[in-house]
């Protein structure tokens, strides 16, 4: 059991220590959600700074702000950070905070494993970024193509930080995936059949499967790379008959499901926000759900559309091209259903709705350029050009980030108990929308007039100067929009309007409990009759069928009967041991062995923490 340091009770030091300790040993999914969200936002800012430096370098031809080597490190770390340390953990913060609330549960299935997942994430993120401090940030692109990544062509440790950092982050994601799959299947409130789950839960559910099934492929790819770099194997060595394409296949078998991991949670958020602010149920919810499942499944079959230029041959090219075009269908179905949800609705234009509308528009644009890439002959011109950079920023920023901000503004009052400021929210939205489009729309043009990706500068007579300058100005507008968001947070976190349990007249269970929720979430376990259970409780079904019925008020006895899991320090200790072991690969074999032993011992302690003591021992 977790113990507390013996400080004089009542002193400031004791209070400070116990607050810090409570956060380090928390197994409360809500706190873990806050930890993920805060960390994600900090890394998002770091990734943003990396982007701004790149844009400043590219604003003018023949610029000398940063060297080519530094630029390589910047685009590598920007991509890796935004994907693994910003968007994924932001999604994870919503999984953590909202999944139990929306399924009517008091906790997740494995609270300590959940905490472990966060601490391993943080260890991986810090390990990866420590490379900046050592002057050897990864420089092989976020996709680390072989055999540039071999120790022949990348002899220094830059690639090792990337390779090992991603392994650590992968463990974190997989552990979280196992936890949420079991939670969603096994801990739904009585009456909540699978088809009565909110659509955000469904999209999160599909995402968890993508996480646990896609990461093993990159785990293997990275293991093969590690063996090549450290132990002389020949997996990616052309001179021995090895094929660098093996890396590309393994990477993209992971990498394509990964982009659905990045977008599905945001789609789930939009599927909650639109009905709430249109005061209408999600149109065609079963179709949206099945489309999400189809996207998840098909997403495993399209990976080589990232490889149309490597010479796979017409059969492979055609197969992946057809599969990629097919996947546009369920995506389109969702977009039409979202629009149909708004049609005829009683729209309340609040910040969450604006961001969701922005998501629909921007993601659709990104999807259109994506469908163009699905054609191999067209892609042969577009690949490795700024056209692709434009495409994926439209879907990942215009899509995922806008969707996640919609969720932030939507669920912030539930998490914090206070509303964010509406006016500042709208300033944030409009500046971000304008800045985003000014930054990335011109990149379509730059791609089509020949500007390649991943170049640190360009000659002045190529015709690229104007749009690069425009794009950089857009980036600075984006920065301004984020500053406004930060001001909004600072301004309202302690003194914003009190939200109450249900500031938006919501439809789902999380709005039926206080803001912020008590540690046990629900004093009385809800019973569910509908996807929009809370709406049903407030208003009935509107057809004279089910009347409005709220559950009875909780009593002190109800609350006293609730048992929540105890805090534990084993998650953070085990995460430290794992990080120590893996980083040992860059230091010495003794550290790896010591770390490995510690990992095994701490795994045992973790597993035995709640096991019965030996007979004859008191407790």
């Amino acid at each position: 059991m977790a113990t507390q340091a013996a400080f004089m009770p009542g002193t400031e030091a004791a209070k400070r220590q116990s607050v810090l300790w409570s956060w380090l040993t928390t197994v409360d999914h809500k706190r873990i959600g806050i930890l993920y969200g805060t960390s994600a936002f900090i890394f998002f800012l770091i990734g943003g700074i990396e982007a701004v430096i790149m844009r400043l370098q590219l604003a003018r031809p023949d610029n000398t702000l940063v060297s080519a080597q530094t630029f390589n490190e910047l685009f590598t770390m920007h991509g890796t950070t935004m994907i693994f340390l910003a968007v994924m953990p932001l999604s994870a913060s919503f999984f953590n905070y909202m999944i139990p609330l929306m399924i009517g549960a008091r906790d997740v299935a494995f609270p300590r494993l959940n905490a472990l997942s966060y601490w391993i994430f943080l260890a991986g993120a810090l390990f990866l970024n420590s490379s900046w401090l050592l002057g050897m940030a990864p420089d092989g692109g976020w996709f680390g193509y072989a055999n540039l990544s071999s120790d022949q062509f990348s002899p220094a440790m830059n690639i090792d930080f990337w390779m090992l950092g991603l392994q650590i982050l992968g463990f974190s994601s997989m552990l979280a995936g196992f936890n949420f799959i079991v939670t969603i299947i096994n801990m739904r409130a009585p009456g909540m059949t699978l088809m009565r789950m909110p659509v955000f839960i469904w999209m999160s559910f599909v995402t968890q499967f993508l996480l646990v099934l896609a990461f093993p492929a990159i785990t293997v790819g990275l293991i093969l790379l590690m063996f090549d770099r450290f132990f002389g194997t020949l997996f990616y060595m052309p001179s021995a008959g090895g094929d660098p394409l093996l890396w590309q296949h393994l990477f993209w078998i992971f990498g394509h499901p990964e982009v659905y991991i990045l977008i599905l949670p945001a789609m789930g958020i939009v599927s909650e926000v639109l009905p709430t602010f249109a005061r209408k149920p999600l149109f065609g919810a079963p179709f949206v759900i099945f489309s999400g499942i189809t996207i998840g499944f098909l997403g495993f079959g399209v990976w080589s559309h990232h490889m149309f230029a490597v010479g796979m041959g017409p059969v492979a090219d055609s197969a992946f091209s057809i599969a990629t075009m097919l996947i546009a269908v369920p995506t389109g179905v969702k977009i039409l259903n979202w629009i149909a949800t708004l049609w005829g609705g009683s729209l309340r234009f609040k910040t969450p709705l604006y961001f969701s509308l922005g998501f629909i528009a921007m993601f659709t644009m990104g999807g259109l350029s994506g469908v163009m890439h699905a054609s191999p002959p067209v892609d042969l011109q577009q690949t490795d050009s700024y056209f692709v950079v434009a495409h994926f920023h439209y879907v990942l920023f215009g899509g995922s980030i806008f969707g996640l901000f919609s969720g932030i503004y939507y669920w912030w009052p539930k998490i914090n108990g206070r509303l964010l400021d509406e006016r500042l929210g709208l300033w944030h939205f409009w500046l971000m929308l304008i800045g985003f489009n000014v930054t990335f729309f011109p990149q379509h043009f730059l791609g089509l007039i020949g500007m390649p990706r991943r170049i640190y500068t360009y000659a002045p007579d190529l015709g690229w100067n104007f749009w690069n300058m425009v794009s950089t100005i857009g980036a600075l507008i984006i920065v301004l929009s984020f500053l406004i968001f930060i001001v909004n947070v600072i301004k309202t976190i302690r003194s914003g309007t009190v939200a109450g349990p249900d500031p938006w007249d919501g439809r789902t269970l999380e709005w039926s409990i206080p803001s912020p929720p008590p540690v046990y979430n629900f004093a009385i376990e809800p019973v569910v009759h509908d996807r929009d259970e809370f709406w049903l409780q407030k208003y009935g079904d509107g057809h004279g069928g089910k009347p409005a019925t709220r559950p009875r008020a909780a009593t002190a006895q109800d609350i006293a009967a609730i048992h929540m899991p105890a805090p534990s320090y084993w998650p953070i200790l085990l995460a430290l041991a794992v990080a120590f072991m893996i980083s040992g690969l860059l230091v010495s074999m003794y550290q790896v062995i010591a770390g490995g032993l510690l990992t095994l011992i701490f795994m045992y302690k973790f597993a035995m923490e709640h096991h019965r003591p030996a007979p004859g021992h008191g407790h």
Partner: protein
Amino acid sequence: MAESHAAAVAHSGGHASIRTYINVAVALTILTTLEVASLYIPGIPNWLLVTALIVMAGLKFFLVVGFFMHLRYDSSVMRALFVGPLFIAILIILALMALFSAFILLPHHVL
């Protein structure tokens, strides 16, 4: 105790007996013997050998999963959680082999 009740609940779907386990073990032994023996059949065509080995390995696989791992008797949720990923893994193996022209090297397999 809650756990033994839970164990009973979890096994309410049926249970293999020790007899069944022994039978499965015998079947596994026979299959393994046949597998190894088929390597030594003189003049066996390649396609037949490969097919036979895959079929026998597949049978062993399903015997262990179905009976020893109890999946035959368990909830369909558990089945789905394993069989789905297994299916995707097999597809990935086949796709990788096709992309690396592994099938062209094996006679009598047309892509």
